[in-house]
């Protein structure tokens, strides 16, 4: 008895099985019978689902088959498979709902694939097998190739092989990766960078060498002793920047300029001496002397007098202008003096008249004052009081003193009073008129007093007036005299001017001569200063000057060149420094780039290593595949297949076989052919050589042969209605084969058949033949409420007695 056995199966609402069924399986052979649609295939699929978590045949037909696993009328279902596996009880369970199945405790992947590939032959796979014979193509896509590939896991190997194909060609590697070509581009880029960096660095280094050579030469020329190298650039630069040459050049330039100005001065002096003609100074002096002799005294006398007349101002000393100026001034003085005399006389006359008028006005005022004094001062008020009083007087009785005025006999009191009022009123008018006249007189007096006061200072006493007149006369006389002398004075002025001019010209000529001398001296000193040979007396100033200029220019040129060299040297130092900087930068960038390059190269190496691994896998795939193909499709398989086939078709002279692939197998290209079972190829494809029944036999036996050709991982052989089109002869042989497998090779066989006769026959044929042997039959049918029913019967061993008598 095997240590692995399917023991019992409980199914609820799975596929076409409605409701719950229980099926014991713990027998060597389990025979399942049911009409089509009763649930045979469902029962066998349930085993596969529980064991592997999927139903391969359904999956091949419909990837979404999981949604169809639950019976249509139910909401949940369950499959429970009890087994003995590796000598222990093990349950496999799948819970079903409308979304699919949840499997608990499935087989290991290897066992599951063994089960799906070699233990369970669903009808669909058998159909596929039969198709293989009918379409016996031998190409990669042929049904046989697909079937065998799937069966032996070769399709995965093929997928690996094809999938790794692009690795062979780097162009394809670039296509299937994103990083590869990017890394290659990056590598190329960095290499370019690195290359250009190295070139730049080389150029910089060469530049440095060349510049240092040039600088060394320059420094030699400049007399700079410091050694020139990259390390001594600072010292060299210090030496180059020395300002001595520059200041010397400045000095030389100054000297050159000085020389120029000296030369110009001398030229001026030379030219002036040559150009000017000296006036005759002696003649001019004589002329003026003559004039002075003739007119000098008169002029001096006149001048003294005029000066006396104009004491407060100084007169111009020049002869010509003196006459004009003095005349103008003297005329003004004479006019003023006459004027003053006339005014003094007029003031004297007016003063006398004013005094007289004053006397008269004073007399009038006194007369008015006398009259006013005689008049009562209050006449007006009294007259007014009295006129008021008149209304109270109606008789002669005085209302004041009550005396009778009549007694006086001077008329009536009323008249009296009225006369009195009248008289009083007349005095008042006079008083007013007098007052006005007095005021006028007073004003006149005051005006006259003021006039007198103003006039009094203007008057002069007679001596002073006479003096004034005398002075006026003197001035007039001087005017006349001056008028007469004016032309002479102008003449004298002109002579004096000539005399002075001549003298000045002479003086200037003298000073120019001495300047020339001084210039020569300067030139001599200068020649010593500039370090040229001394200017000698014999050398002309122009020659000396030209010689000095040449000397200075030569010096300037030398210094200029030296400065240019220094400047070039400084520029060279700067250029060397820039180049050094650039070289150092390049060193850094070369370093960085080199690192980046090695990083990229490292990644590419890694990627290449992966590519190599992939290719190694691909090669190994090739090897393994041909190994497997050789292993599987060898003489053993053919022998086994032949054995099985001949068992089922003993009268068929031809047997199917695989053409065993030889040589390097890229892909499985299995070819089926038939050969005569007693040797020699018949050559034809099975489809052409075998009958339909024998084709089915060939398919079935191939599956069994594949099952038997490997170590039995699971000793189970589950066949779903494999004998639909076999004739009875074959069924008998097939039954014998099943028995052989079950009883000699320990396979637990579960076989479903729909044919009643076949079922009965198999039940007989597979009956237990030893006490340890067992057979279970399961009969599936639909119950009255359309729930699935499973009737099971266990057949046990029974000692055969029929022939005992014999």
């Amino acid at each position, binding site marked *: 008895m095997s240590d692995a056995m399917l023991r019992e199966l409980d199914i609820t609402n799975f596929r076409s099985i409605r409701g719950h069924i229980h099926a014991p399986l713990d027998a060597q052979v389990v025979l399942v019978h049911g009409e089509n649609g009763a649930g045979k295939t469902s029962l066998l699929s349930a085993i596969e689902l529980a064991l592997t978590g999927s139903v391969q045949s359904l999956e091949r037909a419909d990837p979404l088959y999981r949604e169809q696993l639950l019976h249509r009328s139910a909401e949940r279902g369950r499959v429970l498979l009890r087994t003995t596996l590796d000598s222990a009880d093990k349950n496999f369970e799948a819970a079903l709902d409308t979304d699919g199945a949840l499997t608990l405790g499935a087989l290991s992947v290897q066992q599951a694939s063994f089960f799906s590939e070699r233990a369970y032959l669903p009808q669909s796979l058998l159909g596929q097998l039969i198709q293989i014979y009918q379409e016996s193509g031998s190409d990669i896509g042929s049904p046989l190739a697909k079937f065998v590939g799937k069966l032996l896991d070769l399709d995965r190997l093929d997928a690996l092989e094809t999938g790794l194909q692009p690795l062979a060609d780097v162009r394809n590697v670039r296509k299937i990766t*994103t*990083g590869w070509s990017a890394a290659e581009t990056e590598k190329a880029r960095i290499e370019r960078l690195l290359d250009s960096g190295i070139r730049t660095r080389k150029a910089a280094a060469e530049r440095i060498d060349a510049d240092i050579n040039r600088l060394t030469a320059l420094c030699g020329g400049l007399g700079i002793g410091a050694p020139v190298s990259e390390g001594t650039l600072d010292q060299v630069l210090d030496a180059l920047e020395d300002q001595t040459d520059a200041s010397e050049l400045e000095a030389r330039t100054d000297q050159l300029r000085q020389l120029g100005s000296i030369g110009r001065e001398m030229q001026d002096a030379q030219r002036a001496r040559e150009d000017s003609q000296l006036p005759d100074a002696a003649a001019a002096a004589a002329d003026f002397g003559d004039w002075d002799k003739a007119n000098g005294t008169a002029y001096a006398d006149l001048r003294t007098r005029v000066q006396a007349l104009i004491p407060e101002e100084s007169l111009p000393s020049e002869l010509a202008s003196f006459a004009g100026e003095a005349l103008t001034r003297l005329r003004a003085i004479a006019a003023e003096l006459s004027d003053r005399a006339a005014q003094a006389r007029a003031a004297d006359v007016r003063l006398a008249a004013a005094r007289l008028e004053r006397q008269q006005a004073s007399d009038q005022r006194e007369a008015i004052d006398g009259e006013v004094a005689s008049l009562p001062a209050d006449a007006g008020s009294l007259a007014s009081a009295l006129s008021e009083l008149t209304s109270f007087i109606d008789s002669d009785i005085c209302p004041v003193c009550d005396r009778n005025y009549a007694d006086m006999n001077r008329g009536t009191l009323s008249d009296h009073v009225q006369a009195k009022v009248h008289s009083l009123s007349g005095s008042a008018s006079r008083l007013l008129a007098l007052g006005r006249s007095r005021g006028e007189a007073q004003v006149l007096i005051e005006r006259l007093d003021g006039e007198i006061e103003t006039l009094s200072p203007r008057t002069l006493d007679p001596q002073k007036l006479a003096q004034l007149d005398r002075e006026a006369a003197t001035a007039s006389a001087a005017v006349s005299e001056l008028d007469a002398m004016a032309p002479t004075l102008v003449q004298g002025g002109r002579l004096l001017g000539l005399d002075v001019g001549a003298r000045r010209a002479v003086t200037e000529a003298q000073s120019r001569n001495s300047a020339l001398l001084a210039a020569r001296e300067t030139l001599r000193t200068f020649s010593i200063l500039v370090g040229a040979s001394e200017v000698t007396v014999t050398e002309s100033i122009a020659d000396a000057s030209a010689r000095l200029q040449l000397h200075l220019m030569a010096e300037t040129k030398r210094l200029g060149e030296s400065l240019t060299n220094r400047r070039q040297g400084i520029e060279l130092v700067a250029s060397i420094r820039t180049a050094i900087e650039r070289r150092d930068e390049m060193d850094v960038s070369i370093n960085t780039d080199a690192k980046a390059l090695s990083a990229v190269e490292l990644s590419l190496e890694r990627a290449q290593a992966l590519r190599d691994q*992939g290719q190694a896998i691909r090669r190994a795939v090739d090897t393994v595949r041909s190994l497997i193909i050789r292993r599987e499709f060898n003489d053993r398989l053919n022998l086994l297949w032949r054995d099985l086939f*001949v068992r089922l078709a003993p009268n068929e002279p031809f047997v199917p076989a695989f053409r065993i692939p030889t040589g390097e197998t890229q892909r499985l290209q299995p070819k089926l052919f038939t050969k005569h079972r007693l040797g020699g190829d018949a050559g034809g494809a099975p489809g052409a050589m075998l009958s339909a029944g024998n084709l089915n036999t060939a398919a079935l036996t191939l599956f069994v042969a594949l099952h038997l050709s490997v170590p039995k991982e699971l000793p189970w052989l589950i066949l779903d209605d494999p004998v639909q089109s076999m004739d*009875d002869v074959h069924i*008998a042989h097939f039954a*014998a084969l099943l028995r052989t497998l079950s009883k000699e090779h320990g396979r637990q066989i579960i076989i479903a058949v729909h044919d009643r006769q076949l079922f009965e026959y198999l039940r007989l044929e597979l009956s237990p033949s030893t006490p340890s042997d067992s057979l279970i039959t399961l009969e599936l049918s639909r119950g009255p409420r359309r729930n699935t029913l499973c009737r099971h019967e266990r057949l046990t061993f029974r000692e055969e007695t*029929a*022939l005992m008598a014999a």
Partner: protein
Amino acid sequence: MTHSPIVSAVKSRLHAANYTELATPLRVAGVEFPFTAAMRGSDGRALDLLLVLDTTTGDFGDKDATRIRQRIEALSRALDVTGSRYVVTAILVGATLAGGIDALAETCRVLQVDGIPLDASGKPDGEIAATQLDDQIRVLLPLTLPLAVTLVEGSGGTAMEQLAKALGEDVDAFVLETLIAAAADGEDEVITAVGSLIDGTFEHAADKKEGRP
């Protein structure tokens, strides 16, 4: 009773396959059934009842298919009556019968043995003759399986295991696992997987580069 050489050869081959000869005529349910020979299997084949019929010499009228069929049907019925589970196999040895075999096959398993060249000692003459004989009664013989493939060096396990074995240490285990897993979903997945594996090395390098100060 002596048999023809071919009958002897068949019996001898069946003996070798653990069949035991039964006394003939067979007696079932009190009825006697004469046959050239009758044999019974052992163990798993204990219910196999073999009837050898010599169609050449024609013992018991065995040249006639109809008579053979009648006799065997009678035996079957007798066995049924006794409730026996014996499975009958008729081995027709000798000349091929003209007809009636198909009808006989409805009653029992029918095997025909003929045209086997025999040597002087009555054994199949040569290997081909032996195979020929075996083929004709093969369904009765034990099935010999070839050596299990694992016994062949280095070829055991699933295709993927063998692949891993073939590669040894040359290939990174992770790479192989990734690719094998992808292979289950087809070649396109393999291309994608190998592409991203290779890309992974670049990302790795990029990370490292960025990570570096």
